[in-house]
């Protein structure tokens, strides 16, 4: 193994003693295959046991370890040291309150996720059968991409609108609603549109597109939001110009 070391500058905040966050620097050995999370674990195990952060799967699927690395929201388990200079600055995800160190308060996100009715709402006249429903591969493909969100919230940290207007439902929640709206088995679109195609919903989005750029799972929430906008505009025209046409 090499002698090379990198310096991790980690945001520390202890609510019981600090009035505001500060940075603490740790020298960490460099390994070609290490990710920032490995470096944090090294610090936790060998240098400073008081550092707190969230992590679990180490394979970019549980969504726990989102943080800012050199100013960019990333999953710490997928941010390789080799892709960074020798000075690496690690901060908690932007736009979320800091509970402690790299741990953020995500109550707001959790509440928004629940608000968009992210579950299948079957048609009222659908028989309550216990049989499997058919769905062709093409119908599945229509929404599959939007099912891949791991709720890591990098998109919220990247979205300037969310930073400026915390009421904004935000990329992941709306993309999830869109996922159910596009599912051939769902009949709940009208209910969801009332929530997402409103103020605090898609119309707070100005299509910066940052959410999609940072999304580690290529969900493309920005695309989802624009599609919701278009659909909602079409709805409006249909309703006001062609009231005789059923949606």
């Amino acid at each position, binding site marked *: 193994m090499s002698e090379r070391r990198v310096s991790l500058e980690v945001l520390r905040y202890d*609510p019981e003693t600090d009035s505001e966050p500060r940075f603490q620097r740790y020298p960490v050995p460099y390994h070609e295959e290490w990710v920032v999370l490995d470096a944090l674990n090294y610090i936790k195990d060998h240098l400073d046991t008081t550092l707190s952060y969230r992590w679990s799967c180490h394979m970019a699927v549980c969504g726990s370890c989102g943080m800012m690395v050199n100013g960019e929201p990333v999953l710490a388990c997928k941010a390789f040291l080799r892709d960074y200079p020798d000075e690496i600055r690690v901060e908690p995800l932007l736009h979320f*309150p800091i509970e402690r160190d790299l741990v953020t308060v995500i109550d707001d996100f959790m509440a928004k996720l629940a608000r968009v009715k992210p579950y299948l709402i079957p048609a009222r006249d659908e028989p309550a059968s216990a049989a499997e429903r058919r769905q062709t591969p093409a119908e599945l493909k229509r929404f599959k991409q939007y099912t891949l969100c791991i709720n890591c919230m990098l998109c919220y940290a990247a979205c*300037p609108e969310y930073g400026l207007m915390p009421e904004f439902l935000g990329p992941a929640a709306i993309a999830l609603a869109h996922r159910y709206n596009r599912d051939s088995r769902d009949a709940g679109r009208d209910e969801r549109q009332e929530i997402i195609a409103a103020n605090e919903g898609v119309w707070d989005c100005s*299509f*910066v*597109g*940052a959410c*999609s750029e940072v999304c580690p799972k290529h969900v493309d929430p920005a*695309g989802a939001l*624009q599609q919701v906008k278009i659909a909602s505009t079409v709805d409006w025209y249909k309703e006001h110009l062609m009231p005789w046409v059923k949606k």
Partner: protein
Amino acid sequence: MSRKPYVREVSKTRWFLRQPRYMRYMMREVTCLSIGAYALVLVLGIKRLSEGRAAYEGFLQALASPGGILFHLVVLAFALYHTASWFNVTPKAMPVQIGESFVSGGVIVGAHYGAWIVISLAVLLLAGAF
């Protein structure tokens, strides 16, 4: 209670300086003003036309002046940037699915450019450019 979550304030006026991608976004938004500026020039031209031949000739001369040409070059560059930046994001807003696969983004963007060229040619044709 010992909890005391710390909230980092976001600057309402300088937030876009933090990230190149935010700057690019601001460029896309701000360049729309150039389209407006050109529309104003057009309105002004119509006004001059209504004021008679002399006024209109003066307007045309102003357009042909170095300042006028410079203005048009800048406005054109901005308008092109604005247009291209929007065309390039159209595949996100308007994905086209055929069977199990999606039409590639390049095709959708290309179709926009194609339509743009066709419409421009039509306008030029109507204007008697050919």
